């Protein structure tokens, strides 16, 4: 059953080939056997999952099921789920049992899906390798000596290791697309505002977006049908007519104009990875697409801009973690100041503390104009670059990450090296555009992802383009040997 897509599982449940209870037990069993080798999950609660499965079976019996009813989905531990420990990968929230459901979780509950467990992640979503989690590294099922990518490393490893048929994830600078690329999965970061952020623990508010991590584009579309939608509890949530992302998924892509940015193919991109991307471009040509060269001249500035804006917003978002009302509190302290400073010294990991310091610095008196304001201005330039590009093409194609999965510990000591992992993905977040990564090939038996970036609210088109690629290729069906 681990090889079935959401589509196949949905059909199977409908045709009563198996029940939700059987399905859930099956995956919980796989977790028992395999999770310890890759550490993809922080919290597994069999009782809760099985109870949800039982309820789902009742709904199915009544004939009231939706597409995802009864299917176990892994949830990134960034989404508050009532009654579930919700840690965001941090010691700061190790004792935090969420008192409410995030909107994303509520939607999955309403759809009758089963919560399979909370997946591991870089602490407070800050990282590109899942090496900063309080709960230990996550290992890439393709080669457990390598990283799965981050921050949604746990979700990626869970799906790649066939421990869950699909997972939710979040993307602030590439945290869905890069791990999807490194783990041979299809992951989508939607247009900013399409999926509610209510209950999704905030990292960088103007960049964070939740999205699906699956084996196929079609499965991502099914997940998007559940996840997306206006939420009055999130002021930045977009109000627009609800779309069905499965409807046009088989549309022909003949005549599609694919823009290839020259800046994505410069130094820094591994030559083997580049070859695989080129192969993908050829495939699209075969399918009737037209390739257009475009330019995103300010793309290289997206990293500095991101590393001003994201830490700035994060430094403020993480101020609430002070040990006063919930979460970690240091054991011994002389006074209030002592309590604050020790709690935050002990509760946060190094990368989080670094980013809080940077964020605090760039917002501090005298620096706001030179850093934060300047970054927001360049952000507009980056956004304009995309606008111009979309006048010439329908979708942009490029790599998702500069390399394949790298060895654990390789870049941990050098933050700047780590930050470069996001060079192809960050600009999408800055502009608020939708971006998708899908498997495009293997290099040394490690997956390489192809990235597609679309115009605002073009998720359906992106999924369609990816799906057509997947009906003509087989990369998305490959699975790591040990986890088959």
């Amino acid at each position, binding site marked *: 059953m681990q090889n079935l897509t959401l589509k196949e599982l949905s059909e199977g449940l409908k045709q009563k080939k198996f029940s939700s209870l059987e399905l859930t037990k099956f995956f919980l069993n796989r977790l028992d056997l395999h999770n310890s080798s890759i550490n993809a999950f922080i919290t597994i609660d069999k009782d809760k999952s099985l109870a949800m499965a039982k309820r789902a079976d009742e709904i199915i019996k009544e004939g009231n099921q939706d597409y995802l009813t009864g299917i176990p989905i892994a949830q990134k531990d960034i989404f508050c789920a009532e009654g579930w420990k919700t840690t965001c990968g941090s010691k700061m929230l190790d004792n935090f*049992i969420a*008192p409410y459901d995030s909107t994303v979780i509520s939607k999955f509950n309403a759809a009758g899906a089963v919560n399979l467990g909370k997946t591991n992640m870089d602490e407070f979503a800050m990282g590109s390798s899942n090496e900063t989690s309080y709960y230990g590294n996550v290992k890439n099922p393709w080669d457990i000596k390598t990283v799965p990518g981050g921050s949604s490393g746990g979700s990626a490893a869970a799906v790649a290791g066939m421990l869950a048929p699909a997972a939710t994830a979040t993307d602030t600078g590439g945290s869905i697309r890069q791990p999807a690329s490194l783990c041979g999965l299809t992951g989508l970061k939607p*247009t*900013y*505002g399409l999926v509610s952020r209510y209950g999704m623990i905030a990292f960088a508010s*103007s960049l964070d977006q939740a999205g699906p991590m699956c084996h196929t584009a079609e499965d991502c579309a099914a997940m998007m049908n559940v996840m997306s939608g206006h939420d*009055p509890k999130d*002021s*930045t949530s*977009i109000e627009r007519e609800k779309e069905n992302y499965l409807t046009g998924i088989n549309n022909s892509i003949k005549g599609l104009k694919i823009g290839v940015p020259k800046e994505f193919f410069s130094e820094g991109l591994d030559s083997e990875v580049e070859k695989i991307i080129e192969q993908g471009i050829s495939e699209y040509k075969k399918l009737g697409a037209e390739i257009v060269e475009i330019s995103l001249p*300010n793309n*290289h*500035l997206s*990293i*500095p*801009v991101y*590393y*001003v804006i994201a830490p700035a917003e994060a430094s403020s978002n993480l*101020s609430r973690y002070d040990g*006063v*009302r*919930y979460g970690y*509190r240091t054991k011994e*302290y*002389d*006074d*209030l*100041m*002592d*309590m*604050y*400073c*020790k709690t*935050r*010294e002990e509760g*946060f990991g190094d990368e989080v*503390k*670094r980013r*809080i*310091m*940077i964020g*605090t*610095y760039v917002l*501090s008196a005298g620096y706001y104009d030179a*850093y934060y304001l*300047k970054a*927001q*201005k*360049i*952000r*507009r*330039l980056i*956004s304009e670059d995309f606008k111009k590009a979309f006048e010439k093409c329908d979708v942009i194609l490029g790599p998702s990450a500069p390399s394949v999965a790298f060895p654990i510990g390789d870049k941990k000591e050098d*933050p*700047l090296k780590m*930050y470069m992992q996001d060079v192809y993905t960050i600009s999408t977040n800055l*502009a*608020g*555009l939708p971006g998708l990564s899908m498997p495009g090939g293997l290099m040394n038996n490690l997956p390489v992802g192809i990235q597609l970036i679309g115009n*605002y609210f073009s998720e359906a088109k992106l999924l369609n383009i990816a799906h057509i690629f997947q009906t003509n290729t087989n990369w998305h069906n490959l699975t790591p040997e040990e986890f088959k």
Partner: protein
Amino acid sequence: MKFDNDEIKKIAHLARININENEAKKVSEKLEGILGLIDQMTEVNTDSIEPMAHALDITQPLREDKVTEVDMREKSLKLSNETDQSLFIVPRVIE
């Protein structure tokens, strides 16, 4: 951009994070590196550009003035480290 110990201590204090001497040095090295990266921004002239705070041109929605939340002390006090008579207890706050 160099970070001396005092600078680091000031930032750490603003952020309410203890950093000892040893860590301060490590942190300042890493921060200097990151700032070097950030300084790349100066290469482009942005004088006439409007800052972009949000991806899309939408405006703040308004909420009807209705009470929708209920007393949740049963949950909230349980999640806290130290409470007394429905209050969250902290070391004495000096005005």
